[in-house]
């Protein structure tokens, strides 16, 4: 009887009613259209997020002109079809999955509940609440790529503003709408330089982020690009070695500043080496927050500027999503990867925005495109745009000043602890630095777990097991810093 009542309703996948069905009432045929609704009850499917009812579905099949759903699958040979149900966990309700996820979050100890000095490319900077509010708006969150400009002016103008902000921070003339992350941006920058110069040798500083190196390797191997790494000296690129490495066959030089170790590179000397060659391009990977106080790459004549943008208004998110920014001089516009928004006018002469220079892109140029990138990290770039608007000229500068001052204070204090010292004592740095530790970093890290302190990144894979790399952002208070100093003393004492 329950099934009869339900069949006369137009809505609902109320699985709880399955209990009303006796064993006898359960239909035997899996896809009998006349019994579809009952079948659903039998299968206990809740089917969230599907808006048509079984009754409607039956009528739609009638309109289409088929007896049952299976008739729509005639193009799929029977033997290619799954003969069983997928081996997945039974469906959970919204509350059940919420509860499970909440249980899993308890297995994570986040930076809100710990005193964290982790960086290494992604940073725990302060994010004003309004950023989250804007990027959570469905108007931005659930919109597609703005191919239909007339109904995407919001996204398009926001990207135009993002491009302007990146240009303003870096001193470059054109920026794209974003890349996947700093690492892929670095790889694409090298590919662009190779396209542009028609040379195949790329000289890369050994001080760039290790993940950048790994991603660059994947993007450049097997296509005739020759990578030459320049070793480090005192935590920065060995300028003399770079001089040796760069010649008239070099397409580009890639440096990162502040580099992986947090140190500022000798950018003016590198500029002189790179631009002594006629066609060699300088690619700089930068920390966007540092741009508020340290050189804009235009000041040392960088030709392409890229970087990891996460620090601008995006949470750490266990390392993703991140976003890469990508900027260059204007004469390279047509060689750039990724989407670019341009201002133009509409039919009535009103200002309007649209995607531009699309002839570079995969959907037009296919195998001859400048890149295969399609989806990028638009929402992260929007977060950066809102973040920079909220921080403003003075706010970003203040945040950067906090980072510098607090990081240097901490470095001073740690250096005073017996057995600890700066790994690169004479090298200027921004917000991150490497220290020598009297005990292995791994030992220190694990002995601080109980205190909910993440003292930094274990440098064992990158330089030395007795080194830690610490990042300090504006979020740190003096008591956070002093707590670490005390803990370092206690953990390594004896």
């Amino acid at each position: 009887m329950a099934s009869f009542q339900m069949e006369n309703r137009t809505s609902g996948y109320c699985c709880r009613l399955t209990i009303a069905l006796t064993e006898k009432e359960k239909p035997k045929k899996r896809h009998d259209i006349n019994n579809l609704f009952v079948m659903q009850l039998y299968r206990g499917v809740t089917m969230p997020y599907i808006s048509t009812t079984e009754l409607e579905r039956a009528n739609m099949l009638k309109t289409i002109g088929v007896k049952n759903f299976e008739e729509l699958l005639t193009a799929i040979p029977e033997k290619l079809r799954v003969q069983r149900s997928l081996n997945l966990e039974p469906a959970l309700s919204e509350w059940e999955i919420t509860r499970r996820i909440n249980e899993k979050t308890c297995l994570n100890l986040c930076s809100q509940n710990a005193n964290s000095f982790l960086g290494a490319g992604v940073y725990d900077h302060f994010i004003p609440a309004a950023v989250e509010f804007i990027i959570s708006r469905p108007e931005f969150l659930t919109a597609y790529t703005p191919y239909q400009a007339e109904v995407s002016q919001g996204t398009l103008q926001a990207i135009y503003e993002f491009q302007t902000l990146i240009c303003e921070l870096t001193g470059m003339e054109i920026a794209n709408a974003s890349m996947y992350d700093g690492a892929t941006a670095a790889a694409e920058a090298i590919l662009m330089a190779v396209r542009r110069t028609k040379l195949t040798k790329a000289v890369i500083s050994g001080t760039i982020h290790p993940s950048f190196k790994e991603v660059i390797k994947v993007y450049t191997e097997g296509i005739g690009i020759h990578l030459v790494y320049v070793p480090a000296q005192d935590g920065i690129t060995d300028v003399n070695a770079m001089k040796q490495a760069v010649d008239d066959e070099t397409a580009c030089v890639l440096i990162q500043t502040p580099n992986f170790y947090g140190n500022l590179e000798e950018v003016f000397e590198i500029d002189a080496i790179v631009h002594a060659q006629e066609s060699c391009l300088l690619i700089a990977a930068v920390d966007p927050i540092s741009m508020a106080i340290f050189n804009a790459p235009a000041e040392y004549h960088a030709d392409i500027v890229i970087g990891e943008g996460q620090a601008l208004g995006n949470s750490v998110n266990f390392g993703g999503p991140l976003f890469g920014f990508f900027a260059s001089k204007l004469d390279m516009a047509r060689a750039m990867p990724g989407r670019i928004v341009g201002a133009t006018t509409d039919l009535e002469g009103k200002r309007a925005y649209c995607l531009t220079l699309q002839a570079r892109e995969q959907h037009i140029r296919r195998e001859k495109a400048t890149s295969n990138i399609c989806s990028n990290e638009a929402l992260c770039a929007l977060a950066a745009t809102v973040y920079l608007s909220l921080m403003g000229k003075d706010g970003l500068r203040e945040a950067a000043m906090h980072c510098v001052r607090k990081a240097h204070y901490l470095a001073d204090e740690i250096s005073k602890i017996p057995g600890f010292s700066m790994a690169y004592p004479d090298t200027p740095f921004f917000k991150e630095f490497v220290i020598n530790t009297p005990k292995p970093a791994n030992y220190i890290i694990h002995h601080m777990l109980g205190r909910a302190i993440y003292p930094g990144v274990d440098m064992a894979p990158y330089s030395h097991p007795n080194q830690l790399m610490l990042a300090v952002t504006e979020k740190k208070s003096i008591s956070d810093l002093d707590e670490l100093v005390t803990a370092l003393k206690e953990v390594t004492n004896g």
Partner: protein
Amino acid sequence: MAKTIFELSSPGRIAATLPKCDLPKTFKAEVPPQYMKFLRKDTARLPELSELDVMRHYIELSHKNHFIEKGLYPLGSCTMKYNPKLHETLARHTCFANIHPCQPLETVQGALEIMFELQRDLSEIAGMAQVTLQPVAGAHGEFTGLKIIHAYHEHQGNHHKKKIIMPDSAHGTNPASCTLAGFEVIELKSRPDGRVDIDKLREIVNDETAGFMLTNPNTLGLFESQVEEIAAIIHAVDGLMYMDGANLNALLGIVQPGKIGFDVMHYNLHKTFSTPHGGGGPGSGPVGVVEKLIPYLPVPLIAKGEHGYFFDESHKHTSIGKVHTFYGNFAILLRAYVYIKMLGADGLRQVAENAIINANYIKKRLENFYHIEHPEHCMHEFVADGTLQVKQAGVKTADIAKRLLDKGFHAPTIYFPLIVSEAMMIEPTETESLQSLDAFSEAMIEIAKEAQSNPELLKQAPLNTPVRRVDDVKAVKVLDIKYPITS
């Protein structure tokens, strides 16, 4: 038109507040001399605004967007389904949003468990042996998959395998990814029925063939029925079968690509598994492979050991390496995980069934008004075209698309696939109600009638959108890609 954020700026205004810089007075304040040369000469002219200024500005911009909650988004191959709000709430939990990728493993077990289970669930859904979650977009997954194919052939000593064959109906990212991965693209003309031309394929396959790239269902919304034969031809020369998983929504619980001849496949979590598009990203493009290709997957994979979950790099000597700074787009992975758990096996099958029914329903409703090159039943999407309208009224597909915007709908994917002229690729997805499918169909029918009665109206469209038709030719000729800040 809205002013830019830069025009709203007023010197001295500031929205953000920062904590005190509470360092002891004894800490030196002056800049050490070795830092002087690194100080920026000018100041970055960021806008100066109050929080309300910023909010009003971006809310105003938001009003100019079409988005899923506003109306149907029938973009073919893009799978613009509804994105459950639960995903957003859970992904924003501080213990996910604020965990750092370099934290000790003991402190991120919850996140790793989710990734581990997602690897397993995605493997099962596509019938693959293992999945990497690292690629962050569909095209990024394609690139990763192609590098895996490259590594496999290199490992076999087949250095001459440099050619990837694909049909001319392929997404633009396919050939672009091949070039990026160092392969040469061989394009295969499709048969009149929209399928891969097997006879021609036999002719062009040779020892240099590294693989075959296929979207299935293809971009015409048709299942490639002869996929087994295609796989046999490719495998006979030790080539590998790549599946572009953009259209996986149609196959959930119906076909497992890994069981019908495909060796590598990328998933678009932002399509099939309902994570939001964000105006163009972030997405996520995991790659699944069959057993023999596991050694080439990017490092690390997530594994479960005696002491819990950990990053497994045991195959790093054969692996292609890394394609992302860390482990991929975790926050997107989390959303897809929740989606799969909410639906289960039966729910996923229902997704596919309803997506297919919805597409066929619209197709049926439009067949008397628009030319449809392939009249057979479609999968989750179909391609209609504007050739009738061009012939009869000089109205192009672009005009039809723009008129749809006036009627509150997003346009279909237009002028793609390239093998259908004046193409309109329509994918309603399973989340649309019968009312909205009807409303869309009726709007399309109305437009077909307007093309007859008032073609000028369509050529002028859109009329009711925030801006009228945008001059994209001018945007290329007069390049204006950043606001000229003055101050």
